[in-house]
């Protein structure tokens, strides 16, 4: 055996161990969702695979029991779709403005975009909270959607992408007599399609998992999104583990399915900011 093969085997073994470590929590939560909640209370989350103690009871309860899980699930779905569509449209438009034109104040405005990416959103929680309160938007989805509608990271990504589009395209559009907006809608938007996929998925994932701000805004149980609903199953007075674990497990599945189907776009969206290109 030569050193090349040995290296291969060692590397493979090393990453397999690492991978196992990373997947262990998923395994634990998967088998826990087949066990009664008392088991979790008594033994904690564990790796014991014991068929005799496992059943589909939790899943039956998830789909037939009396709880608001699927209300939260569909709220999350709705909110995610609306948020993604609006954010993508608005951010793409802004990015096009930045990349296609030279105008006064452009650099200053773009610095603002970069600044947003560096200022922790969390420091705005309180003023946004009072603002939302004063505007009468408490407990509404608009309060969740609006602040993020011109997403800095998304604008940044689209602008990087649009840099690769030849200016001649825009000039040609003008020669043909199209106005500025028609050029954007008819010529540019279609070209942007691939970049929309990456940003849709990344924004969708963030929106699906978003917690802190919606948690502060929403107070009506029927408007809760999935993470908030799951969080409310944990209370100081006792935890509804039966539903919590199977609900947690089930909440990962849609995004996991999406990931397996569209891996490339997840990775494109994730890594877009990190590399100058």
């Amino acid at each position, binding site marked *: 055996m030569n050193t090349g093969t040995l290296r291969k085997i060692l590397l493979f073994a090393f990453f397999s161990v690492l991978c196992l470590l*990373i997947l262990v929590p998923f395994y634990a939560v998967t088998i826990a969702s087949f066990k009664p909640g008392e088991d979790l209370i008594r033994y904690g989350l564990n790796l014991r695979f014991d068929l005799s103690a496992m059943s589909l009871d939790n899943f039956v309860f998830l789909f037939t029991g009396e709880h608001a899980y699927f209300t939260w699930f569909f709220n999350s779905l709705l909110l995610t779709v609306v948020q993604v569509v609006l954010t993508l449209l608005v951010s793409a438009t802004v990015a096009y403005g930045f990349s296609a034109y030279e105008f006064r104040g452009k650099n200053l405005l773009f610095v603002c975009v970069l600044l947003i990416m560096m200022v922790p959103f969390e420091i705005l929680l309180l003023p946004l909270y009072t603002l939302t309160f004063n505007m009468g938007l408490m407990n509404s989805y608009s309060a969740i959607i609006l602040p993020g509608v011109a997403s800095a990271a998304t604008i940044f990504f689209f602008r990087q992408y649009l840099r690769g589009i030849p200016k001649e395209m825009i000039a040609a559009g003008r020669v043909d007599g199209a106005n500025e907006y028609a050029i954007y809608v008819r010529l540019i938007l279609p070209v942007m399609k691939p970049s929309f996929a990456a940003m849709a998925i990344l924004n969708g994932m963030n929106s699906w998992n978003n917690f802190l701000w919606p948690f502060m805004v929403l107070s009506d149980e029927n408007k809760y999104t999935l993470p908030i609903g799951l969080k409310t199953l944990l209370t100081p007075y006792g935890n509804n583990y039966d539903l919590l674990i199977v609900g947690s497990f089930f909440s990962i599945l849609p995004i996991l399915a999406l990931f397996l189907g569209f891996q490339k776009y997840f990775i494109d969206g994730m890594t877009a900011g990190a590399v100058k290109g």
Partner: protein
Amino acid sequence: MIKNFLYSQKVAPYVFVLPFVLVFIIFWVYPLLSSFGMSFQKVTLGQEASFIGADNYTKLMGDTIFFKAVRNSAVYMILTLLILIPFPMLFAVLINSKAMWGREFFKSSFFFPALTSVVVAGTIFRLMFGEMEGSLINSILGVFGVEPIKFLKGQTTGFIALVALASWRWMGVNMLYFLSGLKNIPDDYYEAASIDGASAFQRFTRITIPLLKPTTIYVLTISIYAGLAMFIESMMLWNGNNSPKNIGLTIVGYLYRQGIEKNNLGYAAAVGIVLLIITMVINLTQLAFSGMFKKEED
């Protein structure tokens, strides 16, 4: 007339960027300014605010719980930087080596944890680090004869759980950042270095690390941000914002406690302003040292 105005090439760009300008003013500039203003006032929701000068800040400087929160956030940030930059970089280089089986599979598996919401991930880790003998971590330690540890009741052990959670969720993402950075390094550099007799270690320190600098700066910047702004992870691990002796309290946790839980908005705003200053100072220093600003100019 109006149509001609809006359709001109001079006005159109402003129409395009208008949504950003509006969002920036309404949801960033205004709240930021009002936060700054609030930090000099006594504010309670539903009541008239009163100006109290720098009282909030003076009080903050003598507030031991606040300093505990700052220390926790700083320690968390430093630990995550120490783990979530060198290791993902090394793993990315290893996984990128030509002789690697199952590269795509490992990349995806490492990315999985990032798909979970902080609520779900936090719950899983709270239960894994449970104090019972049978909980995952304790049962593994038990194999080596270690007595069950009450992880979430101690400062050090609590932080082990916190940092484990962060490492689990972000290792794969940071690895992907470095992998995409590696793609931009031409193979010829390594070939030339090999011909000149450079060892693998020399190639790593002389070529890989310097050329990955833009990626490293990016990862560093977002990690500083994320480290200092951490809150929900702690809230999920301790099932609320109150951990024993505040071992898991962070700056944002304290802001939340004062502002939302105690309706002491002015004081909480001062906490927010201090957080803003800390983040900006650290990040700008870091960017200045790494020569980022110079690069933007040319």
